[in-house]
C-alpha cells in the first residue's frame, strides 16, 4: 500500500485542524460564544494571500503571507466581535442566539467574498472562485539551503507555521503577564476584572488572536491544496467543531489530540479501509461522524458526569 501520501496529508491536516480548532475553543472559553462564522477566518486567510499574490504577480513570500493573513483574519474577527457579539453580550442572551447571529454573520462574510471574487475575476481575468496552489518563494529558498527539496513544500510550511504559533502561544500564556490575564479571563472574568485588568481590551485582543491564528491555517491551505474556493472554511469546519467538542470546548490539549485523530481517520483510516477491505471512500462522512459520535457517547466531554446523574442500567438490585 502506498501510504506515504496519506501520511503527508494527515500531517498537514493535523496542523490545519489544530490551528483552527484551538482558537475556536479559546474563543468559546473566553467569551462563551460558539462562533459559526469561525470558518470564515480560514477562508479569508487563504483569500487574502491569493489576492495579494495575484495582484503582486505570484511572488508572495511566506512571511508576508503570514503577516497579511494574521492581520486580516484578526481584523475580521475583531470587527465581528465589536459590531455583533459585544452588543449582544450586553443583553445577556442565551448561547443559541449567539449561534444564530454568527450564522447570519457567516452568510454576510461568505457572500461578500463571492462578490469580491467576482469583481476581481473580471478585473484580473483569473478565476478567483477557484484558485490553484501558491508556492512560497522563501520556503523554496529554505528548502534549497537545507537540502529538503524532496519534501513537498507544504510540509515545511505547515511545520514552520504550526511550531512557531505553538511556541509563541506557549510563551504568551505561560511567561507573560498578558497571557496570564488572558487565561484568567477565560476561566473567571469577573475575578480578573476585580484585579484591575482592562477586560474589554483583553477580550478584543483574544478575538484578534483567534481570528489571526485561524487564518494561518488558510495560509497552509493555499500551499497544500490544488484548489481554494470560498467554501473552503465550510468544508473544514465541521471537523473543527468535532475536535473542539471532543475537547469539551475547554481542554486545549484534548482538542489538539482530537484534531490529530480526526486527520488520521480522514486520511489514513479511509485509505486503509479502502485498500484492505474494499470500502469505497464514499463512506467518509458516515465513518468520520460515526466515530465522532462514538467518542462523544463513550467519553462524554465533561468527564463521567457529562450528563444527568441518571443510571440507565442499575448497578445495585433491590433487596
Amino acid at each position, binding site marked *: 500500500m502506498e501510504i506515504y501520501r496519506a501520511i503527508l496529508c494527515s500531517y498537514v491536516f493535523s496542523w490545519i485542524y489544530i490551528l483552527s480548532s484551538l482558537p475556536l475553543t479559546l474563543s468559546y472559553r473566553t467569551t462563551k460564544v460558539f462562533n*459559526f462564522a469561525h470558518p470564515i477566518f480560514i477562508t479569508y486567510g487563504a483569500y487574502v494571500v491569493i489576492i495579494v499574490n495575484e495582484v503582486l504577480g505570484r511572488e508572495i513570500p511566506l512571511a508576508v503571507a503570514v503577516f497579511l493573513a494574521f492581520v486580516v483574519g484578526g481584523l475580521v474577527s475583531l470587527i465581528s466581535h465589536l459590531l*455583533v457579539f459585544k*452588543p*449582544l453580550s450586553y*443583553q445577556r*442572551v442565551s448561547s*443559541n*442566539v449567539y*449561534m*444564530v*447571529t454568527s*450564522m*447570519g*454573520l*457567516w*452568510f*454576510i462574510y*461568505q*457572500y*461578500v467574498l*463571492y*462578490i469580491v471574487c*467576482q*469583481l476581481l475575476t*473580471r478585473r484580473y481575468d483569473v478565476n478567483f472562485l477557484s484558485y490553484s496552489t501558491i508556492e512560497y518563494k522563501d520556503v523554496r529558498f529554505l528548502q534549497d539551503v537545507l537540502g529538503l527539496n524532496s519534501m513537498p513544500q507544504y510540509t515545511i510550511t505547515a511545520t514552520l507555521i504550526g511550531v512557531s504559533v505553538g511556541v509563541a502561544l506557549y510563551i504568551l500564556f505561560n511567561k507573560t503577564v498578558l497571557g496570564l490575564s488572558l487565561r484568567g479571563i477565560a476561566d473567571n472574568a469577573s475575578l480578573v476584572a476585580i484585579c484591575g485588568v482592562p477586560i474589554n481590551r483583553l477580550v478584543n485582543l483574544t478575538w484578534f488572536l483567534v481570528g489571526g491564528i485561524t487564518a494561518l491555517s488558510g495560509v497552509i491551505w493555499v500551499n497544500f491544496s490544488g484548489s481554494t474556493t470560498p467554501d473552503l472554511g465550510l468544508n473544514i469546519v*465541521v471537523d473543527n*467543531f*468535532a475536535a473542539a*467538542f471532543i475537547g*469539551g*470546548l475547554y481542554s486545549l490539549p484534548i482538542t489538539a489530540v482530537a484534531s490529530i485523530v480526526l486527520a488520521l481517520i480522514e486520511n489514513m483510516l479511509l485509505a486503509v479501509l479502502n485498500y484492505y477491505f474494499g470500502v*469505497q471512500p*464514499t*463512506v*467518509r*462522512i*458516515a*465513518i468520520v*461522524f*460515526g466515530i*465522532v*459520535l462514538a467518542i*462523544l*457517547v463513550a467519553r*462524554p*466531554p*465533561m468527564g463521567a*458526569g*457529562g*450528563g*444527568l*446523574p*441518571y443510571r*440507565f442500567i442499575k448497578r445495585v438490585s433491590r433487596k
Partner: protein
Amino acid sequence: MIDITGFLINWLEYFAIYAILAVTLSLESGISGITNFGKVAFFGLGAYLGAIINTYLLLAISGVDVVKAPPYTAEGVIALIEISTLNPALVLGVFTLSILVSFIVTGVFGYLLTYPIIRVGSGFVGFTLLCVGEVLRGIYVNMEFVGGTNGMLGIPQPFIWLGIPMLSGLCYLLLSVTILALTYIVTDRILGSPLGRTLRSIRDDDIAALCLGKDVPKIKSKIFFLTSGFSGVAGTLYACYVSSVNPQMFVTLVTFNVWAMIIIGGSESPIGAIIGALILTLIERILPLIASLNEYLPFTPDYLRPVFIGLIMTIVLIKYPRGLISMKPPKFIKSAVEELIREAS
C-alpha cells in the same frame, strides 16, 4: 403580469413544511431544552421513508417489477408518472400510509436517541445530534436502493391526478397546513399544561427536575418521539412536494435555517416559530426579484440575497435578542390563581 396565486401557493407550501419543523424545534429546543442541531436527520429520514414507500410500494402494488424498474431509473419514473395520474385512490392510500409510517418510524428513531442525549449532557447534545444527521446522510449516499448519491425521482404528489397544477397544489397546501395546524395545536396545548411546566423546568435545570421526581429521560424521550415524528411527516410532505430526494438536500444548513426561524421568531413560543418561518421563507422568495436590477451592478446581483438575509438576521437579533414574540406564562393559570386569590381575600 406576476402570477400571485402560484407564488402564494409555492411560498406557503414551503412555509407550511418549514413551520412544522420550526414549531417542533421550538417545542424540543426552546421549551424542553434538547438543543437539536440534527433536525435535518429527522426531516431527511421522513423524506426518505416517504420516498421509499410512495415509490416502491406503489410500484409493487401496481404489479411493476421493482427489481427490473427501480424507481431511480427512467423506467421506474415513467411507470410512477402513469400510476399517479391513473389511480388516485391508490396514490392517496399509499400517501396516507407513508405519512403514518414516517411519523412512527421517525418518532421511534428520536425516542432511541434519548440515550446519547442524556449521556453526553445538555451542552453537547446539539453537536451529537448534528453528527447523527451527518451519519444518516453518509448512509444515504451509500445505499444503492435509494439511488445512492443520485437520489430518487418521480415520487408522486398525491393530488397530481387532478390535472390542474394550481388545484393539486392548493389541495396539497391545504393538507400541509392541516398538519401544521395539528402540530401547532398539540404544541400549544402541551405548552399550557402541567407537562409544559415540567418541560420548562427540565430545560431550566434538569438535575433539579430529576431530584423533584421528574423522570427526565422518559419525558424527554416522549417529547422527542412526538417532535421527531412530526418532523418526519414534514419530511414526507417535502419529498412528495419536490417529488425527488437526494442526500445533498439534507445537509446541516437546513437545520440552521430552522434554527434561524425560531430564534428570530422567539424560541419559546410556537407562534414565534411560525412567524419566524413566515418571515424567512418570504424573504427568500421576495429577494430574487431584486435580481432584475442586474444591469446596474458589476457583479451577480443574486449574491446580495444571502447578504441581505444575514444582515436581517444579525440586525433583528441585536435589536430583539429574545425574538420577535416573547413567551408569556400560560394565561389559564394566571386567571385561575387570580380567581383563587380573590376568593381567599
